[in-house]
């Protein structure tokens, strides 16, 4: 067998019920949004802030959280480190759910949701538009993730033939699974270019946007993998495998150093270093964000620290927040459309986002309990 096991156990646990309540509250507002009053009634979106947390959290940050499958696929298949293999399946599931959540969020946010299919009609395509690339690429990637995860379902159903057929083309799906996130995660950065002066100068790096977006996606992807490695070990009551984690740590050290270096050199080249110490909101957020990137670097660079589970966890969490902060700062917190506009998400808006997350977690819990997802040796 593949060595993957269903966790089993009761589905309707207390945490699960809490998630269900959150999901129900969000769904109530969802009904209001889609069937009664429209998005104005449930959100604080306005003429200046056309994008709020539905786009910036659910899509921009959420899909980066969902880059675990992407990061691991690069580590396992492209750089031929087959030893990470046991983790792939759970990483793919988390990615699938994360991207599906991004898709949900995008649909909640879609002003003219009833004609969403217009973006799939070639006659409409505008090849200059970054949003076209993001939209189509994410849609295809969700399908790819679904097919990458399908072996777990087929194994459970005992459909050996289908499983074998799929295994024959799996290498191509994996290659797509590396290419597509590279494309759309970097394009999320390009979106910032089109917003021009509305993006704070500390985050408006113009030509470098795609590169920085991609590196943050990888950093967040790897930290999610570290997370999953420990949770999977905990579920089977064992210590996380340290050779695995130290291998991942090396990749992360490289990425973090690269990001910090590029970030500072760009600001130097663009003559913006002075803004870092301006003492305004932008500079404080920038310093906070940089600290979040530096903390994990400090932890991981010391062999003594990185062998301790608790320190590793701090590093992983710090990285997740660092990447999320980078994207939140750039897209929303320092975003400035000009005088007369302000934005803070409304309660229903937040509840809708939370309900999508709750749904994602519920599905994850059900699937790891019923399908062979987690690996007993990871």
């Amino acid at each position: 067998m593949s060595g993957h096991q269903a966790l089993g156990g009761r589905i309707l646990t207390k945490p699960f019920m809490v998630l269900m309540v959150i999901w129900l509250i969000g769904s109530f507002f969802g009904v209001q949004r889609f069937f009664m009053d429209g998005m104005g009634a449930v959100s604080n979106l306005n003429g200046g802030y056309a994008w709020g947390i539905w786009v910036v959290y659910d899509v921009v940050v959420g899909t980066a959280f969902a880059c675990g499958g992407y990061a691991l696929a690069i580590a396992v298949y492209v750089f031929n480190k087959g030893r990470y293999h046991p983790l792939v399946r759970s990483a793919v599931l988390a990615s699938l759910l994360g991207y599906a959540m991004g898709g949900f969020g995008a649909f909640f946010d879609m002003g003219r949701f009833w004609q969403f299919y217009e973006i799939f009609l070639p006659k409409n395509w505008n090849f200059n538009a970054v949003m076209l690339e993001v939209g189509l690429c994410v849609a295809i990637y969700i399908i790819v993730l679904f097919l990458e995860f399908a072996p777990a379902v087929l194994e459970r159903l005992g459909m050996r033939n289908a499983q074998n057929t799929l295994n024959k083309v799996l290498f191509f799906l994996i290659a797509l699974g590396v290419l597509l996130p590279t494309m759309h995660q970097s394009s999320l950065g390009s979106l910032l270019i089109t917003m021009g002066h509305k993006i704070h100068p500390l985050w408006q790096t113009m030509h470098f946007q795609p590169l920085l977006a991609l590196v943050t996606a990888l950093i967040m992807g790897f930290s999610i993998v570290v997370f999953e490695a420990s949770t999977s070990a905990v579920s089977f009551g064992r210590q996380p495998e340290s050779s695995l984690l130290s291998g991942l740590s090396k990749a992360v050290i490289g990425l973090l150093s690269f990001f910090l270096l590029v970030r500072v050199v760009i600001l130097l080249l663009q003559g913006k270093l002075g803004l870092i110490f301006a003492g305004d909101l932008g500079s404080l957020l920038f310093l906070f964000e940089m600290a979040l990137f530096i903390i994990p670097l400090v932890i991981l660079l010391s062999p003594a620290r990185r062998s301790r589970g608790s320190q590793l966890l701090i590093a992983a969490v710090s990285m997740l927040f660092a990447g999320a902060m980078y994207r939140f700062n750039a897209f929303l917190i320092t975003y400035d459309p000009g005088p007369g506009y302000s934005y803070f998400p409304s309660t229903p808006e937040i509840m809708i986002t939370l309900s999508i997350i709750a749904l994602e977690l519920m599905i994850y819990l059900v699937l790891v309990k019923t399908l062979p997802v987690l690996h007993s040796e990871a």
Partner: protein
Amino acid sequence: MKRRDFLKATLGGTAALVGAGNVEARPNLEPATEAVGMLYDSTLCVGCKACVSKCKEVNDMPPVIENGENAWDSARDLSGDTLNVIKVYRDGAAAVKDAEIDGFAFEKRSCMHCVDPGCVSVCPVTAMRRNPKTGIVTHHAEACIGCRTCMVSCPYNVPQFQYNELFGQIHKCQMCNQAGVERIDKGQMTGCAEVCPTGATLFGSRKLLLEEAKRRTALKPGDSYNYPRGDISKPESYHEKEVPTYKPHVWGEKEAGGTNVMHISSVAFDKLGMPPLGERSAASIAESVQHSVYSFMALPALALAGLTYVVRRNTNDEDEGGDA
């Protein structure tokens, strides 16, 4: 090919994907051949809002009424129901018209009909279009998915979504030339220019309007000038007026590639709420980056080929090695 070479090609292709490739920059777009537009002279505007009312009438939109005061439209900003609005700059006592200190000034906000429009560049479904001849930027709701990228990418926050309707749509000034209205195609001028009593909003070809704007900003303050009303190529009438102290700046000559609707004023444009723009349009930079990254899909295809090879090899290795 050797595996190493493939690996290199893959990494090279993937690196180029994120912008390390050679960037063939696309310059700003040029003005359309027969670009039409408007010149708004803030010093002539008396704040009567006749243009706001006329705009609603032409576009069949309800007036926005505040405090039961319904003599004129009292919309304060652009919205799904308002394509044109007159805003007021106030400083201190706000006593002197067109003075930056202790003064006040008017500013018209409506679509600038950019020469290199951000909204057109970013719309994934081509629902924003620039007419190649007139340069007029129109919206086509039948394809629009409501992603609102046009809103975040318009330097002037012009496109507005009807958030308060279940089946809302994006609205913006289409220079009175959308299907069903077509005032420009019929040889008429824009509604707002037609009703402007002082010629503060003047209609015409971009070329003539730019000349007029430069002429005015070069005039000597205190002299008198004969100001046209309506359409600059065939003014309905003129009125003589003392020349104010113009700022030597025609907004829209160069900003982010220029606009077909241009503004002149006695008060600095940043005080009037205009955004801090350079000469290069964000659209031209984003498109340069994106097209050099994708080089019409050749790079992604190459990267995919390389990745497929490498992944296949590595999965085979595992099989041979007897994976646990």
